[in-house]
C-alpha cells in the first residue's frame, strides 16, 4: 500500500484537492437540482395533470447514459466540470421532484384549511406551512440524490480528467497502481457516508416537532410525512 496517497502529477491535485473538487462536482448539481425541483414540484402540486408527464420526463432523463449527455454537451460546454454537473443535476430531479411533491401532499388538509382560514396567503402558506412540513421528505430525497451524485461524479474521468476522485480509477489502470483505485472507492464511500450523516443531522435539527423513537406513539405519528417514502 505504498504510495496510497501519492497522487500522479498529471491529475494536478493533491488527495485533499481531489476531495474538494469531487464535493463541488457532486453537491452543486444536487443544490441546482433542488432549486429546479422546488418550482417544478409546486407546479405539479397545483396542476395535478402535470405530475405524471413531469415524472415521466425525469425518469427518461435519468435513463439517458451520462456518456451520451457528455457527447451532446461537450460541443457547448467543452471538457469542463460543467459538462459533468449538468447531467448530474438532471439526474437528481428523478428523486427530488417526487420527494417534494409527496412531502407537500403529506400536509393534512385540515392544516391547510386552517392556514387559509387564518388569512395566510398562498406564498406564506407555502413557505411557512407546506415547505417546513415537507422538510423530512425533502431531506430524505436529498440523501438519495447526494449519495448517487457522489458516486456518479467519477464518470467525468471519461472526458479528460473531470471525474475528480474518479480520475484515480483511470490513473490506476494507466500506471498499474491498484492502490489508487482502492483509495478512490474508499474515499468516495466515506464522503457519501459523511454527507448522509450530515443530512440526517440537518433533518433532526429541522424537525424537533417529529415524534422520536422512544417517545410514546401518538395518532399524530400516523401522519409522519416521511412515511410516503419508506
Amino acid at each position, binding site marked *: 500500500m505504498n504510495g496510497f496517497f501519492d497522487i500522479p502529477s498529471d491529475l494536478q491535485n493533491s488527495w485533499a484537492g481531489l476531495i474538494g473538487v469531487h464535493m463541488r462536482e457532486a453537491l452543486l448539481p444536487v443544490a441546482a437540482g433542488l432549486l429546479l425541483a422546488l418550482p417544478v414540484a409546486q407546479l405539479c402540486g397545483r396542476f395535478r395533470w402535470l405530475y405524471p408527464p413531469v415524472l415521466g420526463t425525469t425518469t427518461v432523463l435519468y435513463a439517458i447514459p451520462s456518456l451520451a449527455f457528455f457527447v451532446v454537451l461537450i460541443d457547448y460546454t467543452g471538457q469542463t466540470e460543467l459538462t459533468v454537473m449538468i447531467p448530474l443535476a438532471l439526474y437528481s430531479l428523478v428523486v427530488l421532484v417526487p420527494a417534494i411533491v409527496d412531502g407537500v401532499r403529506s400536509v*393534512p388538509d*385540515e*392544516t391547510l*384549511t*386552517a*392556514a*387559509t*382560514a*387564518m*388569512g*395566510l*396567503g398562498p406564498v*406564506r402558506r407555502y413557505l411557512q*406551512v407546506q415547505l*417546513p*412540513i415537507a*422538510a423530512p421528505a425533502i431531506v430524505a430525497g436529498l440523501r438519495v440524490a447526494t449519495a448517487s451524485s457522489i458516486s456518479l461524479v467519477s464518470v467525468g474521468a471519461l472526458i479528460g480528467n473531470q471525474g475528480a476522485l474518479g480520475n484515480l480509477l483511470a490513473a490506476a489502470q494507466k500506471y498499474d497502481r491498484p492502490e489508487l483505485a482502492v483509495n478512490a472507492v474508499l474515499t468516495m464511500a466515506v464522503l457519501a457516508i459523511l454527507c448522509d450523516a450530515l443530512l440526517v443531522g440537518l433533518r433532526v435539527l429541522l*424537525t*424537533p*416537532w*417529529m*415524534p422520536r423513537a422512544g*417517545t410514546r406513539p*401518538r*395518532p*399524530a*405519528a400516523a*401522519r409522519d410525512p416521511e412515511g410516503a417514502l419508506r
Partner: protein
Amino acid sequence: MIRIDSVTKRYPDGTVAVDRLSLDIPDRSITVLVGPSGCGKTTTLRMINRMVEPTEGTILLDGEDSRRQPVTTLRRSMGYVIQNAGLFQHRTIVDNIATVPRMLGWGKQRARERAAELMERVGLDPSLAKRYPYQLSGGQQQRVGVARALAADPPVLLMDEPFSAVDPVVRKGLQDELLRIQDELGKTIVFVTHDIDEAIKLGTMVAVLREGGRLAQYAPPAELLSHPADGFVEDFLGADRGIRRLSFFPSAALELTTDAVIRSGAAAGPAAATGAAHLLVTDADGRPLGWAAREEATAGDVRADRLLPYGRPFTPGADSLRVALDCAVLSPVGWAVAVDGDGRVTGVVSQQTIGEAIRAAHTEGRADTEKAGVAE
C-alpha cells in the same frame, strides 16, 4: 350582526350546495348550523369568511358587504376552529396560538404573552407551551385550536364541527368550556355540527338545514323542540324531543315534601302520617343515606344494611326538570331526592308531582309562544 342575504352556492357541475339561504346571525351569541351531511352547513360557514365565494346573494357584516375588504384582512378578523384542530405540527403550542397576532405585526414578546394568557383561558397547563402538537391529546389539541382562533381577539368565531372527532366525555368537557368562555368573552359564534344534541346544548339560535342547502327552521332550541316546523325537523330532532325539551324548564318550582324524610336514629313522628310507602333516611348532617320501608321506619327499626339506594339526587334551581325526572325514574321507589349545594336533603318529590309540573310548564310554554305569535 352577520346577515346572510339570499345566498346561493352553485358549483360548475350544477350541484347546489346552498339554496337562497337567508339568516340573521345575532351578535354576541352562539348560532348553530345543524343538518345531515350534504346540507351545505360547512359551505355556508366558509362563505362567511370567503373561503367559498357565493354564486348569488350577499353576506353583510354590520351592514357592509364582506367583499369590500381584502380577503386576508377579513379572515384575520374571524377566528376559525376546525375538526381535528388543524394545528401546525411543526410549531410549538405557543407559536401555533400566536400565528395570527404575529401576522398582524405584534411583537414576539407580546404575542407570546397573549398566547400564555389564552392557554390559561381555555384550560391548558402552561407547561405545554413549548410542546409540539403530537405530544398533546386530541382534546388538548382542540383547546389549542380554540385558543389560536381567539388569539387576535376577533369579534367573530367560526367553528366547523370542532368537537366531533373527540370522544364523548372529552366532547362534553369542551362544550362546557366553550359555554364558559362565551360567558366571559361574548363573541359572535357560528357553530357547525351534525349533532342535534350539541346544537341544542350550545345554540342561542339553531338553524336546521336540509339536503340541498335549504333552511328548514331557524329558532331558539326550546322552540325547535316544542314547535318543529315540519316532519323533516321533527325527524331530525329524534324520538325523545319531548324529554329533551324538559332541559329548558327549571326544577326550582317543584313542590318538595319533607314529610317523608327522617333523620337516622330519630323517631319517625310526622312521617308516619304520609301515605308514602318508603321514607328517606338521612344522617345527622342531613345527607341522604337511603330509603327505608315505612313500617320499619315507624317502628324505629331502621337498619343501614337494609336501606334501598337513593340514587342520584338533583339540585332544584341548578338542574332542569329533565334531571329531576331522570332522578325519579332511576330511583327504586319512584321518588327523586332534592339536595342543596352542600348535598343536604331539602326534600323529596314523587314522579306524579314532577308529571304535574311538566304539564304546567307545557301549558305556560304554549301560552308564551302564543303571546309571542300575537306580538309578531
